[in-house]
């Protein structure tokens, strides 16, 4: 057990998809394309100029501005869920039909409309707990 209690940060937002999940954060300041932007079989970002190119969101809490690109966004993330490569939860800023439908069919607890910008608070590697029903996101900063 870690004897030093890590600082917890609480973000409050609005439920998109209910349920609870926790995991390591994967953060990007760039929007993500679904179809044509990810490989659904591995959960890896493939978009040519994307900062996360080659990185997988499988089993991570994906923290990002939102969705862009093809209308196949939901189907690509849906396929990632079936392939076992979906993110555990989603935390994002900009609501679009792509991400709303995508989050629903990925069945990943998801929250948006926060009281503070998750992209400024959460860093890749932080431990994040997402309570979709209450719209609460708890962040435990990584120690190293």
């Amino acid at each position, binding site marked *: 057990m870690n004897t030093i209690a890590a600082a917890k940060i609480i973000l409050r937002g609005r439920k998109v998809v209910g349920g609870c999940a926790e995991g390591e954060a994967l953060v990007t300041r760039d929007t993500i394309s679904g179809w*044509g932007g990810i490989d659904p079989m591995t959960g890896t970002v493939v978009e040519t100029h994307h900062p996360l190119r080659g990185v997988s969101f499988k089993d991570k809490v994906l923290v990002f501005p939102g969705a862009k690109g093809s209308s196949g966004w939901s189907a690509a993330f849906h396929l990632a869920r079936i392939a076992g490569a979906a993110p555990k939860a989603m935390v994002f800023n900009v609501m679009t039909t792509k991400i709303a439908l995508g989050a629903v069919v990925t069945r990943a607890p998801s929250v948006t409309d926060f009281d503070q910008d998750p992209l400024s608070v959460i860093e890749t590697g932080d431990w994040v707990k997402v309570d979709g029903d209450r719209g609460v996101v708890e962040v435990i900063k990584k120690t190293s």
Partner: protein
Amino acid sequence: MRLTDQEKAMLQGDDGPARQKAIDLLIRYGEALGAERFVDVTNIAGVPGSSTMFLQNYYKQHGGGSFEDVFSRFDLDSDETVPFPKVGGNCCHLQGGMDPELWAEQGMSPEAFEHQQQDEAEVRRHGIQVLKTCTPYLAGNMPAFGEHCAWMESSAVVFCNSVAGGRTNTEGRESTSAAMLTGKIPDWGFHGDEGRRGTHLIQVDVPVESVMDWGMLGYFIGDAVQENIPVVVGKLGQPDLIRHKHFGAAAASSGGVEMYHVVGVTPEAPSLEAALGSKKPVATIHYGPAERRRVYESLNSNGRDLNVDYVMLGCPHASIEQIGEAARLLTGKKIKDGRSLWLFTSRAVKSVADLHGYTKTIRDSGGLVMTDTCSAIGRMLPKGTKVVALDSAKQVHYLPAIMGIEAWFGSTEDCIQAALTGRWSGELR
């Protein structure tokens, strides 16, 4: 969400289990959006029930891989299979996975073709028009001004809103399939007047005339405004349908543009004031010679090797004029040995191209006119392709990323020249 009595009855199962699952999914989707009600939709374009071999095999291992299984469990996000009734309204099927005749040339297996044929028969049986194209508006489904639609395919969505004046959000596979059964979609975004007003002013300071130039401008604007609504003014020629098609598709790829206004051109922008509503633009962005040069270089940043082995035309699916232009450029000429040229279009447009002899002219030169799909959607390339030449900014955005190949971007003429010589010689003129 507030439901009408009809919607409540549907949710209780009065209209059968498939419509119950469909409205349940649409309610979850509407609540995720923060929508308060549904709007009735009469024109729905999607890809119902289609499945890759992976998806079919997955469901086979988990209870059943029939069309009905895939439709229930993927399209309606249901945990059980429910009977799939006939759809209502004007519903069409967008692009598919392979050409119905040239599938072997595309590298597809007889099993995959057989499976595609079965899926297509199911689509027909359920009352869904088999248009098999990303350009339904060129193949028999043109939304009317003000018509509430539920469309997917980002290039078709942006055309529907901006050029036709139909009203649709960018829907996905699951929401369009659910809308085919229910005639409902969340009333959000582009269904209301407020959601259709421009947000960013784009001042064009360099002449934009050619199809290639409209594609580059679209690619620049999408990157600049992301998911916002651009209002374009400046040195623009009158865009025709092809220019709108390439502009919108590009803006929807580099960003998430679902609607644009060109002042004096598109139907909801008779004036700058009308396009913006009562609001001031949040930003004014200039597009001049330097921006034009930068976007050209960005679209060519995947190209290294000047040896081109594949030319792909028809993204979004080619209009009859575009096929006619390709045929004219290829008349009496031969594509260089070992190189391929594939031009993609809809079945409806290809039937006219056949009639005019364009398909034969292109075939005589060594090229092929294909329908239903494209290299990105079908994940198909001529064998051994390492370098492709493209006249579509949208296709440049996707194909190198999906297939791991190099790509050059230029005009249709540049691309056909590359097919004839095997070398890329395009430049910004």
